[in-house]
Each structure stands twice: as C-alpha cells, then as structure tokens.
C-alpha cells in the first residue's frame, strides 16, 4: 500500500518512490505467449476462446487462401519467364491477410506494406485486376507507373502500396483521426513486417495514434526475416508485442499461421479500436516461406530444410483446410475443383493482361499535380518530338 507521503508529483502524474535501486530487467522471465485456437494439425483446441466463423465465411476464407497460394505460384512463374518484371509472394502468410481481412468491414481502411494482397483478394479485387497491375497495362488503376504488386484500390478502401517501409504507419494515424472526427464506425488497419518496426516511422505512427486516440490496428507480420536479416539482427526485444506498452498501446501476440486465431484477434481488436477509440497492436508470428521477392534467393542466407519444414509442417493453408474439412464444410472434390478453376482463371487473366495495351504516353505526365504545370507541358511536347525522330528508342507497345 502506498501512503500519500510515499508518492511524489511530477509532470506526467504521481509516482510512488522507492529507496531500493532496481533496474527493470531488459527482458521478462518468459516471453509473451502466443494466442492460438487451432493445433498445428488443424484440430480446434478444447475450451479455447475464439470468435466463431460462419460456414460461408470459413469457406470463403479457405478458398481465398488457396487462390492466393495459386496466384502467387503462377505470377512468380510469370516473372521467371520474363513476362512480368517483378513479383513477391505471401507464401506462409496466407492466413494473416485473408483471416484479418475477413474480420473487418468494407468500411475499414487498409494501409498495407506490400505482402498483403490477400486483403484485396478478400475484398473482391479480381485476378484480372491483379494481373493488370503486374503487367502495367492501361487497365491498371495505377496507370503503369509502379512496379508489380504495388496495388491500390479506392473502391476497396485499400491505399496504394509504396515501396518505402513503414511510411504508412503515421499516415494510418492521420486517416484514423479523420474517421474519429467523422464518428465513423470504422477503423484503419495498417500492416508492417518485423523489419519495418525498426524504422522511425513505426515509432512515429504508434506514438501519434496513441496520443491522438486514433482507431487504428497496427498489424505486424513477424515472419522472421527482412530480406536476409533475421530478427535476431533486427531487435533485442521480445519481438514486437512488448513495444505496445511503451506507447500506451494495448497489444496481443497471435499465431499468424492460425487463421481462426488471427480472425478472432482482429475482430476483438476492431471492436476495441472503434468502441474505445484507441490504437491496438497485433503481432502475428509466422514464417516467410518464399524468398523476399523474385530478386532474392533465400537459400543463400538460410537453410533449405528450415524453409521446407515451414512449408510442409507449419503450412497455414493445410492447417485451416484440416479444420474446415473436419467440420464437414469442405471436401476433396471441392478442393480439386477450386484449384483447377483458379488456375485456369489466372492463366486467362495473364493472357488478357499481356495482350492489353499499355497506358498511352500522355499518362507519363498526368497526375503529377492536379493540372500539369507549364514545364511539364513543354517537356511532353519536346519528348513527343524526340519520339518522332527516334522511334526505335522507345517501346512499341506504348501509344504515343
């Protein structure tokens, strides 16, 4: 019991004092436990605390996870064949993007890092729309300006991806503040990897969200690797979840390969964020099964058998499949049908995307500002003259 004379006042509030000098340990005795609902084999843990999923949602979740897997494989191959310039997969993290998206409403605003196309897929972005962006054709909403996988869709409340890491986090706080001002029953969900939490913008984003009491869920995909940098070289804390308290943010660590756990945690976080108007931090532990991107060969810095282990024994898609099948909501037949259908649709989408024209040259100059200033008008005029003089210097699939 602290007596009144044993506490002292400072800016920031009362604090009790002690004459015993003791340092808070740099780490706690045990690591923060990880919330899970399914065993590794997909059996529901008995007496567990979780948010029930309807059959319709569960089937949609599973189908989307399979679709994401197949989409990743096929686009990856397309890059290898030289048909698109770049790609990165969500292999091993399918449960994270699909299950988190499933727990949200369409009004919730997504600020992705770049490994969350599953969220867009859940919301209805078509395979054709994905392919169009990867091919940078005239149907790409981004008008061919960015590398593949830099999706964005206003109608799906999915902000356009940018390559710089963690820049979305303070923006998420601003967007959430706007929702707060509008009294909207919606929140922002912003994703980040383990590496991204080392950026200054992580600190900025979380601190601002906490001070501004903004309804944003910061979802960290701790997949163990930032390209070739293992988490042991990224931070010395017990992962990311412990950082929440440093900002006054409620946090949870969840098994990112357990779709039901992710779904439950995000559902609960969303309610808190909206009803209490506060940020929430979720750390999802997972493993990046694929290489960082098509520009990476991860066998150069990690063991092949580690990768194979996670791909086979800890596969989130198989784990959820077991649960969905055991309940009787999914069958082998549906599996085969789905896989064949998705594969076929993807191959068609790629064919169509490949044949679709690129955006016209004029789109190089639009949208820099709301209206093009005179220097851009001059440059466009001059460039067109140059193209007329030296047509062979320029790709023939962009109409001038």
């Amino acid at each position, binding site marked *: 019991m602290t007596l009144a004379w044993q506490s002292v006042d400072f800016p920031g509030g009362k604090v009790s004092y002690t004459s015993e000098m003791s340092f808070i340990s740099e780490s706690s005795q045990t690591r923060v436990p990880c919330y899970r609902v399914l065993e590794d084999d997909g059996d529901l843990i008995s007496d567990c605390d979780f948010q029930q999923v309807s059959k319709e949602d569960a089937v949609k979740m599973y189908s989307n996870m399979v679709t994401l897997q197949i989409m990743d494989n096929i686009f990856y191959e397309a890059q290898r064949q030289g048909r698109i310039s770049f790609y990165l997969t969500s292999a091993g993290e399918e449960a994270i993007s699909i299950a988190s998206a499933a727990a949200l409403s369409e009004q919730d605003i997504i600020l992705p890092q770049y490994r969350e196309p599953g969220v867009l897929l859940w919301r209805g972005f078509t395979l054709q729309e994905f392919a169009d962006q990867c091919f940078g054709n005239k149907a*790409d*909403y*981004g*008008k061919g*300006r*960015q590398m593949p996988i*830099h999706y*964005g*869709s*206003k109608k799906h409340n999915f*902000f*356009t991806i*940018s390559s*710089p890491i963690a*820049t979305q*986090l*303070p*923006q*998420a*706080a*601003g*967007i*959430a*503040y*706007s*929702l707060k*001002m509008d009294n909207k029953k919606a929140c922002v969900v912003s994703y980040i990897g383990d590496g991204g939490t080392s950026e*200054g*913008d992580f*600190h*900025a*984003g979380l*601190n*601002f969200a906490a*001070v*501004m009491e903004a309804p944003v869920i910061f979802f960290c995909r701790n997949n163990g690797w930032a390209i070739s940098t293992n988490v042991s070289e990224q931070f010395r804390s017990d992962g990311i979840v412990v950082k929440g308290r440093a900002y006054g943010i409620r946090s949870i660590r969840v098994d990112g390969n357990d779709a039901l756990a992710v779904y439950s945690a995000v559902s609960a976080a969303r309610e808190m964020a909206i009803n209490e108007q506060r940020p929430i931090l979720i750390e999802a532990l997972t493993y990046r099964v694929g290489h960082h991107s098509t520009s990476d060969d991860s066998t150069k810095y990690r063991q092949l058998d580690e990768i194979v282990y996670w791909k086979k024994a800890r596969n989130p898609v198989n784990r959820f499949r077991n649960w969905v099948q055991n309940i009787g909501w999914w069958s082998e037949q549906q599996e085969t049908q789905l896989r064949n259908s998705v594969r076929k649709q993807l191959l068609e989408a790629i064919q169509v995307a490949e044949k679709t024209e690129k955006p016209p040259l004029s789109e190089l100059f*639009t*949208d*820099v*500002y*709301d209206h093009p*200033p*005179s*220097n851009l008008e001059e440059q466009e005029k001059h460039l067109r003259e140059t193209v007329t003089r030296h047509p062979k210097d320029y790709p023939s699939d962009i109409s001038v």
Partner: protein
Amino acid sequence: MGLRNIIGKRLGLGLVRRRKPFSTATCDGDGNGNGNAKSINLYSAINQALHIALETDNRAFVFGEDVSFGGVFRCTTGLSDRFGKARVFNTPLCEQGIVGFGIGLAAMGNRAIAEIQFADYIYPAFDQIVNEAAKFRYRSGNQFNCGVSNKFPGLTIRAPYGAVGHGGHYHSQSPEAFFCHVPGIKVVIPRSPRQAKGLLLSCIRDPNPVVFFEPKWLYRLAVEEVPEHDYMLPLSEAEVIRQGSDITLVGWGAQLSVMEQACNEAEKDGISCELIDLKTLLPWDKETVEASVRKTGRVLISHEAPVTGGFGAEISASIVERCFLRLEAPVARVCGLDTPFPLVFEPFYMPTKNKILDAIKATVNY
C-alpha cells in the same frame, strides 16, 4: 499602382540598420485595399490566414509542435481557443510523424495544415514529403491524393526559414532548393504580410501538397496594410515589383527587401533595375522572368541559401537556355556561401546589399 511600406530593423549584427521602405509595386485584385485593411506584421497576417482557413472549412486542421498555445512565433495564436482542441492541437515532437499524419488527414479529404517549428528541422519529414506526399496522386493513378475531393482539401506544410541575425546553423537555414527538386509538390515563399496571407490561403486551398516557407526575420519586423477579408493570391505567378530596363533581379522572401535597397542605390548611379518576386519556386513562372530578361538582357539572382545547387542555379540554367542570344552578360548569383550557416560570421555569409550592388554594376559594365 499603390505603394505599401514595410519597415523593419535588422538587429544583432552589431549595428542597427534602418530598412528602406519596401514597395509592393503591383497590387493584385484581391490583395489591394478594398474594404478594411489594418497595419499588421507577418505573423499576424499568417494568423489571420489560418483563422480564415479554419472558419471557412470545418475540415481544416492545424497541428504541429507547440501550436496550441499560439506557437513559438505566435502564428497560431487564438486558434485553439476558437476552434477547439480537436482541430488545433499539439503533436508529439516528431517531424516525420507530423507530416505522415498530415498526409493521412489530407488523403481523407481534410485540409491538413502542418507546422514544422523551424525549416532546419524539416529533414526527418523529407521521406514523407518526397516519397509519399509528392507521389501520392501519381502512384495511385489519381485514386488517392493529398488531395482532391469535392471539397478540394490538401496538405500544407508551413515552416519558418531564413536568417534571423543570431540563428546559427539550426535556426537560419533556407532549404527550399531540396524541395524544388521534387515533382509533385509546390514550394511557396512570401515576401511580406499581405503576400503571406493571400499566398497561404491559396496554398491551403490548393489540391496539391505545398511547402510554405515563412521568412522568420520578417515575422515581427515587416509591417504592412493587410486587408481583413478572405483573399487569395495566385500560385506560380511571379510579380514584377519594381520596373526597370537595365537588369532583372530575381529573388523571394526576405531577400527581396535587401535587393530593393540595392536597386535604389543602383538607381543613383543611373542603373534602372527591374525586381521580380518569384513567390512560387515550384512550379515557377519562367514566362515572367523570361519576358523581363528579354527587355533588360541581364539577370541577377539572389538568395540566402548556399550558392552551389541553390535554386538560383535552376533559374540561371533556364534563362540561359531560353534567352542566350539576348543576354549581354553572364547570369549573376549573389547568394550565401557554401558553408553551414555561421553565427558570428553571419554578416560575412549573407548576400548583402553591397554584394548585390557590386554584382549589378559588374553585370551592367560587363
């Protein structure tokens, strides 16, 4: 063509120099004295603009370090009391957070008016400005921007810049050149209270992200009649503030009053100087500068920022490209030295009236 006077004194350099009257020779339609005008200083003019911005759009927000009590330069006085803490608020001490947060606000259709306490501290926000704000519209194919909506909101970043007599390395910088190299943002610098109010309102209402540098030295020292009503001055339009025929001088912000003094002295030697306030550095009004150089055949650019890679280099290169055969002399630049902004050596560092005058004469006599 009315004349408006601004008188300021420059202290802290060991001597008190009386500034000569500074004329704003042309008055834009919205900027002249119809209705009431009061004699106020620069920070009060900015304060008025902010009051009007928040009054006319209930989705306008003002935020940054210490803005709630009025700000370290008093630019935000009275806003918090009048519009409430939800719209006018202090942020944590974190420039990258201030700008990132502002981008988020603007992307949702709000008018986000962010303050960076000193331009010297804007660099942590450089990534958010260059990689995010400037490219937000372009990279999304105009699905997202900071940003158009039916209420045309946007992101404005205000920061005090420039020499103040005793600011040293970190309270005197003029970083405009870094930002002028970024397609997708605008860079605006006012020279006086009346200009500041009208330009700031234009920046706030512009559907593109804008960086607005305020000459801190003029916050209290520049006093001018400023109309009390809501008015806007156009962006990307330079203004000829003094007509002349022998040489064109181009500048912005506080430096213009130094250049004006040099012009007055040059006139005594029979040199007729034309002085242009660029006002918007990005995108800048080449046409007005070019027309003037076609008339005079000579150009001199002056800015406080270091000469190498300063914005004067861009103006010089463009003018030489466009007016080479008309030029009677090389383009002159009278700028800060290529050193960090020094404290005791400030008088040596600065592009002074006499340095400008010497360069005017050298150019005219080339």
